[in-house]
Each structure stands twice: as C-alpha cells, then as structure tokens.
C-alpha cells in the first residue's frame, strides 16, 4: 500500500514530487561542495566540481521522473490534452465532427440492434439457452421447417441428446364464446411445448399427455395473456371458460405468460391446442400433418452431437414412404427467425455481414473526411511552420510527441526546437520569401523567379503571439501588428530575416489575419502594409500585400504578393 501510495502521490501530485526532487538534488550539490571544500578546494572550485559530478540537474530530474510514472499513461494523458486542445481550438469543426460521428454511430447502432433483434433474439418468453431448431435442407439449398409427424415421434422417442423435443404447427381458427366470434391464429402443439420452450403458464396449467389424445371430446386450450386481457377482459374466471373452436367445444385451462405468442416470429398465436398424432379433422384444413420441431439439448450435450444423432435417426427412416428423403436434417441454434426458407433465415447473417462492411466503410469515410478537413485547416500552431516550409522548401517535420506535449505551456520552450527543425534547411523553393523580404524584386507584385537565386538560404525567426518583435529578428528590425477588431488575440507574426542571399540584410513579415494592417520598422523607416490573403485555399501560408488586385488571381500571383513599398513615417 505504501508503494502504491507513493506511485499515486507522484503521479497525481507531480508538483510536490518535483519540489522534493529539486530539494534532494540541491542537498546533494551542497554536500558534495562541502566534501570538496574539506578536500582543499576553494568554494567556486568545489561548487564546479560538484556540478560536474552530478551533470545536468535537468537531465537527472528528467531521468528520475521517467521512473515515477507509467510512461504510457503519461503519454495517454498527453494525447488527451492535445486532443482536447484541438477540439477547443476549432469548436465549429469539432462540433461538426462529433455530430457526424454520433450520427453514424447512432444510425449503425440502430441498424445493428434491429438486425440482431430479427436474427438472433428468441421470441418473448422463450428461454433460448440450449434450444435448437430442426430444419430441413433440400439439395438445391431450399430450407423447410416442417416434416411429417412420424419424424417427430421417431426423433423424440430415440434422440438421447435432447432433453425434449416439441412439435408445433399453426392454423387459423374461429373462436366463439359469449362475447362474440373471433378469428384467431392457433398453435397446434405437442403437450411438452411450453415446458420445452421454458414458457411460464401464469394462470392455470399447460397440457397433459392424455389431453392430447382425447380428440374432439374434452378439447382444452391455453390462451395468450393478451387474449385473456382483451377478449376475455382479464376475467378471473378464465379458467374453465367454455369456448367453441371451429364449431367444437373446448375449455380454457391456462394462460401463457405476457408477451408470448409462439416460438417463432411468424406464428403470433393467441391460442394453443394440444396435438398428439395426426391433426384432427376439424383442424386439418387439407394441409395434412406436418410439424416443425424445436428441441432442448440434454445437459452436457452439444449441438454437434445432436446433429450427428438426428442425421442417424433420419437415415433410419429411409424405408418410410411417408417421409421425404430429398431433404437432410439440419440443426440450427434457435431464434425467433431460425430455420425455414424466409429471407431473414436464409440470408440474415449475410445481410448482417454486409451491414458490418457498410458500417465500417461509413466510419472510415467519416473519419477520413474529418481528418481531411482538419488537415485543410491548420491550427494557429501549425501556421508558422507551414509558412516556413513554404519559404524554405523544407519537408514537413516528423511528429514530435514532446513538441506536441510542450505546446500550450508557452512558446518559449518549443520555439528553439521548431526553429532548428525547420529554418535554414535546403534550398529556397519559394524564393519570393526572400524577395518579399527585400520588397524590391517583387514590388510590382509579380514574381520573376529567374531573377532570384534559387539556392538562396533563409534563416527564419519565429515570433509567437507574445514574442513577435525585435527580439527574434535579425538583422535588427521590429514587427508588430496594429490590430483591428479581434485580430490582436489571433494575430501571429513571422519575421523573416534573410542572410546570404540576394536579399541579405532585409526582412519580411507575414501575418495570418486577412485585412490586418502591419507596421514595422526597417532601416530607420516605418513600413506599413495590409494582409491581403490571410488563408489561401490550400491553408498553407500567409501573404502580405498592400494593394488589392481586382479579379481572380492565379496562385503564382498570390505568391508574388510582396510587402508594400516602404515609405517614411513619423
């Protein structure tokens, strides 16, 4: 616990840990100095020797800090901070991106929920664990749900891999009772139907084995909860209620649990009748006796074992002329749409796979659009670097975590790194950078590249929001904005000092706010100009010019825009 506490303290209270380390190192230097003084050195020599032995205190602290925290966690926090900063820097873009991603995620979640509900969910009230649907697969791939009643009896009598197998079919019936006559969809089910599916009977009971063999005498029925609540108005005396089904008297003996309307989605029954043997004549409707089957696996038995057993049992029925041998038995995990030849049953999972691919593509497209939009709109931090690359022809620097992490803590800390990484590298691909600085070759706002030395090298001096000015500019020059409106806060100045090229000894300025006015000193003269193109279409640079040109300009012309002709000012 002590160790964990130390780790947490150092991770969460980093400031205090830093101060402790500072004090520890100060103590070390003091003791080492004392030791050297005792050895005969003067104090300055002793202090120097102590510092030499320790090395750079900053480096020692940095190496020690690396021990404190989980580096990955620190980097994660760093990335989160950077991400948050990016989000807050461009709220409109961020909100758009978030809204788009939320829409895509929401839409896809809805589609997936629907697909999952259709493909994989059981019917309400059914306990699907261990349930398998018996399906019949023809040679041409066609699937059938029903087969002869004799197949059901053969399977249920001999299959040891199932705890129970239930058979069902459904018919339309006309129910009459004292309140009127109703057309209903009825399930004709084996007596173990409710038990096999795990459906509760909330009132009364299910079917007994003997009740299925009574035929038309003593016919019993279980009704749905909805039928009880609507047609029978929730009457307490529902049990024992006399009804007539297709003209045959019957008695209600139970009410199924709320929501249950059959094992499969297409059934939607409101009433169930027991079935044992052939479909009774009063329910036959000329369709013969064919039933669908659902089985619950016995404990410890797998679907593969059950499949093998049913295949064997099915092959044993080869000699029976009443069953169709053109099909082979196929077990599939139970769902409300499993088995059969419906579009959902046969192609549902393929449709789901297509949905998955479409979803993935949609997310990728949205992400690509967001990234592309973000890249087209460089942040204020990137603009100076973008200008510098444009002027010097330098390549885009590799991402630097520490540079990113340092951003926000002030310009001072990262500025030297940035300058070293970008400035003065390679030939000048845009010599107008220097030409612009001189103000002379491009005074007519046209770029004449042939008159410029393409190998001229530029040294760049960056001024951040709070550092633009003479301190960073060589040769001596001052650049500062005369802001208008809200420009002051967003204003960024880069002072370009050129050396070694044709424009040696002069400088130029660039700004990132359209319409802003610049005023700067050079050679004892005050120069004024106005930013004409604050953000070019490619978002990668800023230009300074005085005169507004009418009509559309080519990019070369925009690049050729140069500082105004100098004029004396007070």
């Amino acid at each position: 616990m002590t160790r964990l506490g130390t780790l947490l303290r150092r991770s969460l209270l980093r400031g205090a840990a830093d101060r402790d380390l500072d004090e520890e190192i100060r103590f070390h230097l003091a003791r080492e100095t004392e030791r050297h003084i005792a050895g005969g050195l003067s104090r300055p020599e002793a202090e120097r020797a102590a510092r030499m032995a320790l090395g750079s205190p900053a480096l020692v602290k940095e190496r020690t800090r690396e021990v404190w925290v989980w580096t990955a966690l620190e980097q994660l926090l760093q990335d989160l901070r950077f991400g948050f900063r990016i989000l807050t820097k461009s709220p409109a873009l961020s909100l758009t991106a978030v809204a788009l991603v939320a829409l895509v995620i929401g839409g896809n979640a809805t589609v997936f929920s629907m697909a999952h509900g259709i493909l994989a969910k059981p019917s309400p009230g059914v306990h699907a664990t261990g349930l398998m649907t018996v399906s019949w697969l023809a040679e041409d791939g066609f699937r059938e749900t029903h087969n002869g009643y004799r197949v059901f009896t053969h399977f249920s009598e001999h299959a040891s891999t199932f705890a129970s197998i239930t058979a069902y079919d459904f018919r339309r019936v006309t129910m009459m009772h004292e309140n009127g006559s109703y057309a209903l969809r009825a399930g004709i089910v084996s007596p173990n139907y409710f038990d096999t599916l795990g459906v509760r009977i909330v009132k009364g009971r299910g079917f007994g084995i003997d009740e299925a063999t009574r035929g038309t005498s003593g016919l019993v029925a279980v009704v749905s909860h909805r039928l009880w609540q609507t047609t029978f108005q929730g009457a307490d005396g529902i049990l024992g209620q006399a009804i007539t089904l297709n003209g045959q008297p019957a008695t209600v003996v139970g009410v199924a649990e709320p929501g249950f309307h059959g094992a499969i989605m297409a059934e939607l029954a409101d009433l169930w009748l027991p079935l044992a043997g052939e479909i009774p004549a009063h329910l036959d409707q000329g369709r013969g006796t064919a039933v669908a089957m659902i089985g619950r696996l016995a404990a410890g038995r797998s679907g593969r074992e059950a499949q093998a057993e049913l295949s064997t049992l099915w092959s044993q029925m080869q000699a029976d002329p009443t069953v169709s041998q053109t099909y082979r038995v196929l077990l599939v995990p139970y769902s409300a749409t499993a088995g059969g030849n419906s579009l959902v049953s046969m192609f549902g999972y393929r449709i789901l796979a297509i949905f998955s691919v479409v979803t993935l593509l949609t997310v990728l497209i949205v992400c690509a659009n967001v990234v592309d939009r973000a890249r087209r709109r460089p942040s204020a931090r990137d603009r100076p670097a973008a200008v510098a690359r444009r002027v010097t022809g330098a390549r885009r620097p590799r991402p630097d975590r520490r540079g990113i992490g340092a951003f926000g803590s002030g310009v001072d800390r990262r500025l030297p790194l940035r300058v070293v990484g970008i400035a003065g590298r390679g030939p000048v691909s845009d010599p107008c950078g220097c030409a612009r600085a001189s103000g002379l070759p491009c005074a007519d706002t046209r770029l004449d590249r042939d008159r410029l030395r393409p190998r001229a090298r530029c040294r760049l001096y960056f001024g951040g929001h709070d550092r633009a000015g003479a301190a960073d500019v060589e040769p001596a020059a001052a650049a500062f904005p005369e802001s208008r409106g809200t420009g002051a806060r967003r204003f960024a100045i880069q002072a370009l000092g050129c050396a070694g090229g044709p424009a040696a000894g002069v400088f130029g300025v660039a700004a990132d706010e359209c319409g802003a006015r610049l005023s700067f000193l050079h050679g004892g003269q005050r120069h004024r100009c106005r930013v004409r193109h604050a953000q070019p279409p490619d978002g990668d640079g800023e230009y300074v010019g005085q005169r507004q040109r009418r009509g559309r300009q080519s990019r070369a012309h925009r690049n050729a825009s140069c500082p105004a002709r100098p004029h004396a000012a007070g």
Partner: protein
Amino acid sequence: MPTSAYQDSDDLLRGTLDLLILRTLQTGPQHGHGVGVAIAARSDDVLQVDHGSLYPALHRLERRGWIDAEWGLTENKQRAKFYRLTPAGRRQLQEERDRWTRLSRAIVRVLGQ
C-alpha cells in the same frame, strides 16, 4: 588514475548499481549523497558512482518497493531524504548477492584458466 578508475567502474557498475545501493543501505538509512560516498569509500575509491545515475536508481528501487524513503534531518540539521531497506529489499539483496557471487566466481575461473 581517477579518470580511468571511474571509466572502469562505470562499465562495471552497469547492472550492479542496484546491488551496491541495497548493500549500502543494509547498514542503515542513508541519503543519496551518503550512498554514493559510502560506495566509493567501501571500494577504496575504485567505484565512483555516477551521481547522475544515482537518483534515478534510488527512485527506481523505491518504486519496486525494495527501499523506502523519508525526509529527515542530518547531523548538521539539514533536511535530507533518507532511504532505508525494506524487507523485500533485503530478500532482493540476498538474491542479487548470490547471483553476483556466482557470476564473479565464474569469471575468476575463466580468468584463471
């Protein structure tokens, strides 16, 4: 020559600094500077610990739970951070010592051939 001795010991100390620190703290709590001085003294100034490596090593051992740290006062009433060996550190020291003994014996055998 101190310089060559330092360079030799620098290589030697790679991987053994933890062992030396644990062994030094076995005699009692000590601050970082005292640990470095003690190692140099016990080795007759042959082993000069790089002070820049000392503090990362101490903090690493503390993170592993082999040593514990507490602020206290020196004999000159200066505030200093004292490190002391934990029970886990004593077990680690024994393991490290056994391993070093095996290694050094093996090297001696090789050199003696």
